[in-house]
């Protein structure tokens, strides 16, 4: 036997990104580039009411005056907004109320991604809105949800069917002036999901949106708005994938959540955009603004995210804890491999009395990637008795990657209780060898160790998705060690 000098964990080969295929379908696109005309084009395509167009144009004008942010922990990639297509939709006109009229090519695409839009084939208990490039293809189980008064549809549809709700809430949590990418999204957003849970209703199934970028040179700018009225509950999950392309593609979404008195929103993300190749060529720039407000007393918003894809992930799903006794939670697993970058975390803004927040962040870095946790816990003057618990754990695989932690704390009320714990660990050759000696091979061992490390967060995911997420972690880290 002559074992090489290098460690055994150096020896794995990279597995290709599983969702990298493209769908060949005739598309209708906006002319490349961004101008006022682009905004008008998108609004016209969606046959939007006048107030919506005015809102978009205002956001666009505002965006023109803004500067790109520069405080992040990675070199800012140059994005040429004149080389992006801001709207791309499959050409066949789709009647949203009938699945039979959906292009079979699109149905096949989603089947291939493991998302069946045929209701009879679905797991019971999960309704899906499928977004392909700039448009929603289909939303399942709408009728069953309607019986309970739950509205689950694309935001384009909501603008026509429920304008009063959209008008009232859009931009109420993330105003168009909030930041550079939120402004851009407000101007050009094309689709996304809309959810309204009426008073006293516990949503009878999991709601989910599956986002797929397909077309070349396009950006995806979706907007999701979820409103949980008094005493209601909803659990929502989003998933995303994209084909392998050499060019970077921009995904700048906005998600707004509003929880009224005693309402609870559980929002889970399994993000698996194309991460680029091992040298960092191609991949999605995932620059997203996600924020929820606990508007009423005893409201609760819980973010769970499993971030494995994207060339750069840059987002901070946050909670504004305005109602007294409201609760915000953030559970995160961010995995970076090869040349990937993640700068993610959360903001917990305590405004109401006795508000509570909990942050559990698990960062796993492999290859030559960089993984940063950045978080703010802010206790306002009037937030009597606020409490926060923060736990940030980093795991390093190999010795060419980096883990960084930037916790910010602002406390303006001395009755607040804050705890912060942090740790950094490394998958060791000792752990790998121990597993091997029990008959567990390298890939299985890494998967076992990483899943153990992330257990607290994975436990937060809805059952149906926890298993998927576990597999995804294993796949994302294949060939990771070096």
């Amino acid at each position, binding site marked *: *036997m*002559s*074992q*090489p000098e290098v*460690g*055994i964990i150096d020896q794995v080969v990279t597995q290709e990104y599983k969702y990298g295929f493209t769908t060949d379908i005739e598309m209708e696109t906006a002319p490349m580039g961004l101008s006022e005309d682009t905004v008008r084009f998108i609004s016209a395509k969606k046959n939007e009411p006048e107030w919506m167009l005015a809102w978009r144009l205002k956001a666009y004008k505002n965006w023109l005056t803004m500067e790109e942010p520069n405080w992040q922990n990675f070199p800012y990639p140059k994005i040429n907004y004149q080389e992006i297509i801001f709207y791309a939709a499959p050409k066949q006109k789709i009647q949203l109320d009938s699945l039979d009229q959906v292009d079979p090519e699109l149905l096949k695409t989603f089947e291939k991604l493991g998302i069946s839009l045929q209701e009879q084939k679905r797991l019971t208990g999960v309704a899906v809105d499928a977004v392909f490039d700039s448009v929603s293809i289909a939303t399942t189980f709408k009728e069953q949800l309607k019986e309970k008064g739950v509205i689950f549809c694309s935001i384009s549809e909501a603008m026509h069917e429920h304008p009063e709700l959209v008008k009232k809430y859009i931009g109420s949590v993330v105003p168009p002036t909030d930041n550079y990418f939120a402004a851009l999204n407000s101007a050009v957003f094309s689709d996304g999901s809309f959810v309204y849970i009426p008073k006293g209703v516990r949503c009878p199934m999991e709601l989910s949106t599956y986002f797929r970028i397909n077309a070349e040179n396009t950006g995806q700018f979706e907007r999701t708005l979820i409103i949980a009225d008094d005493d209601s509950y909803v659990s929502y999950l989003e998933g995303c994938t994209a084909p392998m392309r050499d060019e970077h593609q921009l995904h700048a979404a906005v998600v707004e959540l509003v929880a009224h008195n005693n309402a609870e929103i559980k929002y889970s993300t399994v993000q698996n955009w194309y991460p680029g190749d091992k040298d960092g060529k191609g991949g999605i720039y995932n620059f997203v603004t996600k924020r929820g407000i606990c508007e009423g007393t005893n409201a609760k918003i819980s973010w769970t995210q499993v971030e494995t894809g994207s060339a750069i992930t840059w987002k901070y799903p946050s909670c504004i804890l305005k109602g007294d006794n409201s609760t915000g939670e953030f559970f995160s697993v961010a995995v970076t491999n090869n040349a990937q970058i993640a700068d993610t975390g959360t903001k917990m803004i305590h405004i109401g009395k006795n508000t509570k927040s909990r942050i559990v962040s698990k960062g796993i870095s492999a290859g030559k990637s960089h993984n940063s946790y950045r978080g703010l816990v802010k206790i306002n003057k009037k937030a009597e008795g606020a409490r926060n618990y923060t736990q940030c754990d980093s795991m390093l695989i190999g010795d060419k990657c980096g883990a960084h932690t930037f916790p910010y704390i602002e406390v303006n009320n001395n009755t607040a209780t804050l705890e912060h714990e942090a740790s950094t*660990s490394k998958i*060791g*050759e*000792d*752990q790998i*060898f*121990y*597993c*091997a*000696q*029990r*008959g*567990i*091979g*390298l890939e*299985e061992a890494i998967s*076992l*160790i990483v*899943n*153990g*490390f*992330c*257990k*607290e967060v994975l436990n937060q995911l809805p059952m149906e998705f926890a298993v998927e997420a576990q597999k995804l972690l294993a796949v994302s880290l294949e060939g990771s060690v070096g």
Partner: protein
Amino acid sequence: MISIKNLHASIEGKSILNGINLDIKPGEVHAIMGPNGAGKSTLSSVLAGRADYTVTAGEVNFMGKDLLELSPEDRAREGMFLAFQYPVEIPGVSSTNFLKTAINEKRKYHGQEPMEATDFLKFMRSKMEEMEMDKSLTSRSLNEGFSGGEKKRNEVFQMAMLEPKFCIMDETDSGLDIDALRLVSAGVNKLRNSERSFLVITHYQRLLDYIVPDFVHVLYKGRIVKSGDASLAKELEVKGYDWIKQEVEAAV
């Protein structure tokens, strides 16, 4: 079971094993003793396939297979088990999950279907009863926050679960108080049978009062310099290792 011939191994260019010869037949218990630095732990690491060591000469036949050609995981799947001197902690991974993965990986290797979850739990429960393990073990993270004694007992429990053919115990007695030593030894003795072989590596004779070996070998400077039956261990306890060192030096 296992036949080691003229085994030489080194780490970072430094030669540690200098020609080990050892034959172990099914059902036999062999003890390896020796002073610090003799190469005892190196021998267990090399047999288990730790990558830090380079085998420079010799051969090892493990039940008809060339052991040195097998990866560490395949050696385990073929029925080799190493009870570690320092079992590692794997946070967040329960013993149940760990053992289930291990057993199913082994089954896969042998072309068998994975064990059904309920069958596995039944199997694990019966083994826990047999080995008198505390129920809390199944849900606790592997070795995390375990006492020294708990870690070693857990190693023996894993041995019971994986049903190996050949077990290496690497200084299992180190860091154990007398009660823990008794418990661990009792566990090992339960697993002794006419098919299963053991290689017990220890610095002290004490362990061999509980796990009585068929053969005792003294390792010094990477070679087996003396072999005998269980009485050799007693002799070493009384006389120490110096007389053996002197014998070896005199013979050179």
